[in-house]
């Protein structure tokens, strides 16, 4: 019983971080209709940003998070202006392969500049934990859950209550009609790509004290984001949140209940991804493509 409870608590805490990660990918797709295959690399850059802030300047990852997110978003803006913008009218395949290439370049530049060594960030809260009866909850996970929740709430507020947020949703729902409202669609594409990168970087900054930081950490994160987004239905934010918690639960349950579970947990995202693509390609909520 306490194992089940522990499993549930763990998966909820993990689900918070997964939500933030996948919402970034989902939002970017909802607006531009392009799946960002370099998304994992934005997460990785965020993690390195937090790592360097902490190791070079002694700044806590959470304090560094806004600056890291903005920095990576600006980098994404450069990527968009110099590459993606020129293939917006090309077939989807070209966009995928281009972003795949961008991801490869970023990943291997990171490996060359910062070596392939695994790094980790130490914070006052990354090694402590608190006990609730039999249940053990690491402080680091509580912190990430809270920060992720706040960031998602802020994002939803921004999307629904501000002029620009509405404009972004308008582009996602009907591009031509958005133009007729006087919305500059290209600018919204750029903005959504930057937001996508910023959310990825924020995820990475928090992953920096939960996981080890390496140049190759982005790829599994990308696959997990795919699994979540496909599970929830491409472009749907409520679906994405549901998908994030489902994946987190599935992974945690496998880790707890299956022999050798920790190794198999790594494969859950792939199994989920294949399973959903085969049986319910529109996602569990069965929604059409939409944002929020």
């Amino acid at each position: 019983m306490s194992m089940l409870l522990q499993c549930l608590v763990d998966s909820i805490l993990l689900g918070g971080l997964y939500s933030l990660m996948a919402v970034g990918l989902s939002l970017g797709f909802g607006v531009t209709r392009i799946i960002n295959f370099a998304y994992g690399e934005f997460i990785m850059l965020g993690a390195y940003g937090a790592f360097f802030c902490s190791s070079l300047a002694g700044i806590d990852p959470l304090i560094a998070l806004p600056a890291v997110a903005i920095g990576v978003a600006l980098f994404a803006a450069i990527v968009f202006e110099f590459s993606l913008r020129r293939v917006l009218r090309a077939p989807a395949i070209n966009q995928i392969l281009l972003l795949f290439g961008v991801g490869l370049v970023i990943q291997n530049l990171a490996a060359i500049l910062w070596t392939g060594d695994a790094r980790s960030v130490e914070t006052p809260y990354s090694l402590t934990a608190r006990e609730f009866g039999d249940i053990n909850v690491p402080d680091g996970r509580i912190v990430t859950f809270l920060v992720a929740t706040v960031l998602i709430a802020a994002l939803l507020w921004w999307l629904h209550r501000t002029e620009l947020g509405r404009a972004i949703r308008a582009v996602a729902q009907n591009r031509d009609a958005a133009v007729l409202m006087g919305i500059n669609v290209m600018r919204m594409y750029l903005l959504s790509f930057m937001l996508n990168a910023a959310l990825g970087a924020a995820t990475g900054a928090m992953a920096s004290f939960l996981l080890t930081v390496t140049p190759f950490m982005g790829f599994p994160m990308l696959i997990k984001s795919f699994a979540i987004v496909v599970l929830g239905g491409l472009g749907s934010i409520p679906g994405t949140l549901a998908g994030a918690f489902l994946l987190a639960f599935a992974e945690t349950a496998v880790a707890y209940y299956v022999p050798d579970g920790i190794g198999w947990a790594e494969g859950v995202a792939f199994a989920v991804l294949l399973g959903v693509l085969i049986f319910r390609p529109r996602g569990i909520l069965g929604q059409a493509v939409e944002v929020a």
Partner: protein
Amino acid sequence: MTALLEIAGLRAGYQESIVLEDISLQVQIGEVVALLGANGAGKTTTMRVITGLIAALGGTIAFDGEDLSRLRAERRVDVGIALCPEGRQVFPNMSVMENLLLGSFCRHARARRAATLELVQELFPRLTERSAQKAGLMSGGEQQMLAIGRALMACPRLLLLDEPSLGLSPRMVQLVFGAVAKIAEAGISILVVEQNAQAAFSVARRGYVLAGGRVAAAGTIAELARSGQVEQAFIGTDFFKREGAACSKSGA
């Protein structure tokens, strides 16, 4: 008096097919002009070129004496052109209020948002009742009201209406065109594309009949009606289809 909208020798089309061969028309300030013609005559294309969704291949479009060709589509809203597109194109997953607010996204309209919103809600009381409703879940007539209201939120000087009667019940057509008449009374110039010539004639003073991407006839409504050119333009391609549609509608 200079024309508010002046189109001369306009040519436009899609990748390999030219839809508009040679279109010239004018809309004076405060005037309601009808654009008539069969399916495929180029009415919707004309509207899309005026708003900049499609680039013109030749000819000129001047708005208030200024050349529009260098202005990107989203900037044409700023100078005062708003299109209520064919098929309404509301934002389906947003509330009615959000749709209206998006209508006044451009800067000059945003400054006058509260006052415009009041006027639009007065014109279409239904939109006030449904303010929180998801636009995609409303009836076709309500969506049409929303689409017109949304276009009005941009405080346009020229309102382009593309087939506002499409798919609406006769009662709803009456309601929508009643509102169009009120908009015209408020001094907003209107260019309206219609298949339903009778509805268009109820508000317009002048009209153009398009056929094969050219202006086949032009004149006051009375002249057009008398000359029989409206019927001529419709017969063959569209007349029977409309009859069929009317039958199936009354049957339903």
